[in-house]
């Protein structure tokens, strides 16, 4: 069992995403809002494994996170699927400094995409009873989430990418490099 987890670091970290999503450490938050944790895993994993794998695992992540959160009318799947597909098309850059900044930027944009899609679902659900205007101020959730995701992404994504690459190299799989 231990050997399985050391071989498959990516799977081990995948299991931890819903746990950290539920844990919701307040000391890492801003106005009670957290970074969008699944993107930190999805970005390095899709960069190594490509768009189709990114899309599939984006879907899986969405399914799991939807099941641990209570909202039955809204889903995180579309955002994560699109992000998974997009992240798979991003190539690994040689310059480490540029790469770090790029992680921050890409994760911020991904977080904005996921947040906006979720927000649009809430608005469209409440559009009929004219209460949707009351939800407009909660747009700040997206902004705070985008900021935090962009802030933590360079640190977390670079480390996860390094771990996933090492794990993959050990088992004979070549990853794509520009």
């Amino acid at each position, binding site marked *: 069992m231990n050997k399985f987890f050391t071989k498959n670091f990516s799977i081990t970290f995948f299991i931890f995403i819903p746990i950290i999503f539920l844990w919701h450490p307040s000391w890492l938050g801003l106005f009670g809002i957290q970074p969008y944790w699944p993107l930190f895993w999805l970005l390095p994993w899709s960069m190594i494994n490509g768009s189709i794998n990114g899309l599939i695992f984006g879907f899986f992540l969405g399914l799991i996170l939807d099941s641990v*959160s*209570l909202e039955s009318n809204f889903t995180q799947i579309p955002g994560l699927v699109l992000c998974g597909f997009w992240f798979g098309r991003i190539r690994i850059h040689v310059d480490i400094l540029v790469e770090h900044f790029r992680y921050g930027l890409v994760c911020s944009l991904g977080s904005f995409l996921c947040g906006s899609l979720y927000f649009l679902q809430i608005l469209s659900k409440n559009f009929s009873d004219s209460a949707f205007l009351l939800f407009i101020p909660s747009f700040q959730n997206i902004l705070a989430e985008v900021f935090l995701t962009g802030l933590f992404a360079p640190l977390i994504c670079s480390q996860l990418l390094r771990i996933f690459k090492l794990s993959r190299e050990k088992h004979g799989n070549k990853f794509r490099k520009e």
Partner: protein
Amino acid sequence: MLDIRRISSSRWWHKKKNWIIFGILLFLAFARISKGSIYKDFYYFVSRPFWPGQFQNEIILESIDQEYLIKLNLLKKDNIRLRELLYLQESTNNNAITAAVISRKTGGWWRQIILNKGSKDGVQIGSIVMGPGGLLGRVNNTSLFTSSVKLLTSPESKIGVWVDRIEMSGLLIGSGDDYPNLILYSKDADIKVGDFVSSSPASTLLPPNLPIGIVKSIDKQFKAETTAKILLLAKPQVIDWVQILKVKINE
């Protein structure tokens, strides 16, 4: 001649002592007729520095609290009896389960708490969750050992509420921030900042008269609605222990 002078000087009104006695009698008569009011007023000023202080005040307030508690219990009993007569929902229920908050998502879009009591402990979907201060939300999902509570601030939360001062029902909608919105379906609703909001007697989801919050601000009125932001009495961000009420709702 000398004897006559002596007689005239010995009349009673010439004696000071007699006048003093007369004055005292007059004062006593006044005191009797005024029922001692002059004494009481005098005592008021004299005793003022020795009036009951802080300690006495605390004792009195404690007694008042006890009095209110007794009255509250009597009213609760009356309420239950009258509701039974009218076949209405129960407003109180002693079947409460105390649970600890083990996960807390109170920011962003997903607003929920997870408790350490689940279906094993008898928690059911739809149970009411109360924190210190008032209503927190309803149990939306249970596992064997845990139960998930959808908070009133969640964008999916919609419950019927009652504004006591204006005696009007409204709808409390979570909007993804810390202050859920109250919608009153009347443009002329006389709602004011500080009005108390409780669960609606007409709600099919909640028992009546559960404290929820107070009106924080009133938004602009549009169409035929009045909207207001509600400050919740129970703070899910800081609460560590809650009570799950197993309330039987007559649908």
